[in-house]
């Protein structure tokens, strides 16, 4: 079976909530050595979306304005997150504040349940997603590979899911490829974006080869010795992985088979003992 032709994910562009996104790389804007390096990395990545956040502002500082100007100048769609929120109530209020500030109803919904792993609180996540969808948000939930949570999030009205590869900032790559593959299989028509835990372009390529629709990453680029060059490397890897998926990968085999035709081999049939 040619999976490239039969698989519904071979639609040409990445459509998220009805919006065509020009690139399958979504990039975070945090942790860069400077604002200029961040801006250059976003350009080198050809990022389709950049993630942003909201933070407490100091009196008379007005420090958020400069950042927002820089982001606006990049001419890329922004997706605010609810990073740091630990309850649905915090995440809901943060999403509303972000919608007003950034002028978008897209939100990367994070409800964090554990300080060490930054693992999503899936119960709080579903609750917050339901409330935000009812308030008109386009919710992109940061979730795990859990199938039931994914079903509940879909039922809550999330049209896109963002399972982790590994905990945020670890760079460990696809920690549970079997479960991620299952998730992909169970939700063939839902855009699935691998979010968090990607450390190397090869990890991103592997996710794309599995048929995931896009990759969202930050630390792997921002903390590279040369973030701009790493951004370009991720772009190439994600394009390669996507093309490989669309081309249809060969199946893995347990036994060797010669790639060079056997017929006509010199000395074939001679006693080689």
């Amino acid at each position, binding site marked *: 079976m040619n999976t490239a032709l039969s698989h519904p994910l071979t639609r040409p562009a990445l459509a998220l909530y009805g919006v065509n996104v020009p690139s399958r790389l979504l990039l975070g804007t945090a942790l860069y050595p400077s604002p200029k390096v961040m801006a250059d990395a976003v350009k080198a990545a050809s990022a389709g979306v950049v993630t942003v956040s909201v933070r407490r*502002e100091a*009196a008379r500082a007005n420090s958020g304005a400069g950042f927002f100007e820089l982001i606006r100048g990049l001419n890329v769609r922004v997706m605010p997150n609810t990073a740091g929120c630990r309850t649905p109530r915090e995440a809901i209020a943060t999403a509303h504040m972000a919608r*007003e*500030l950034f002028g978008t109803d897209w939100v990367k919904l994070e409800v964090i349940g554990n300080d060490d792993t930054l693992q999503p609180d899936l119960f709080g996540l579903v609750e917050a997603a339901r409330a935000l969808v009812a308030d008109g948000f386009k919710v992109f939930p940061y979730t795990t590979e859990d199938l039931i949570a994914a079903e509940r999030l879909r039922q809550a009205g999330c049209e896109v899911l963002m399972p982790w590869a590994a905990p945020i900032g670890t760079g460990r790559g696809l920690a549970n490829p079997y479960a991620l593959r299952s998730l992909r299989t169970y939700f063939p028509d839902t855009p699935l974006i691998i979010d968090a835990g990607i450390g190397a372009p090869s990890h991103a390529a592997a996710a794309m080869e599995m048929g995931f629709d896009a990759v969202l990453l930050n630390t792997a680029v921002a903390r590279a010795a040369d973030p701009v060059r790493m951004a370009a490397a991720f772009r190439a890897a994600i394009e390669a992985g996507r093309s490989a998926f669309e081309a249809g990968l060969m199946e893995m085999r347990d036994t060797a088979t010669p790639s060079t035709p056997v017929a006509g081999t010199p000395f074939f049939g001679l006693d080689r003992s």
Partner: protein
Amino acid sequence: MELKVFVNGEPTLTSAATLAELVAQFGFAEAGVATALNGDFVPRTARQARRLVGDDQVEIVSPRQGG
């Protein structure tokens, strides 16, 4: 009369009667920040109508880098 409220977690004495006045007293651009009061979002257009009371917990946030 001054009220004690908490602004971004810091105890603050203020003469502001409303959330809008508090935002202005702190020198924030009206459209440059978003606000929440006691855990609930307060839209920009509703700040003038929200009167402050003692020990109110006010959050004032602005755009920042995020992952």
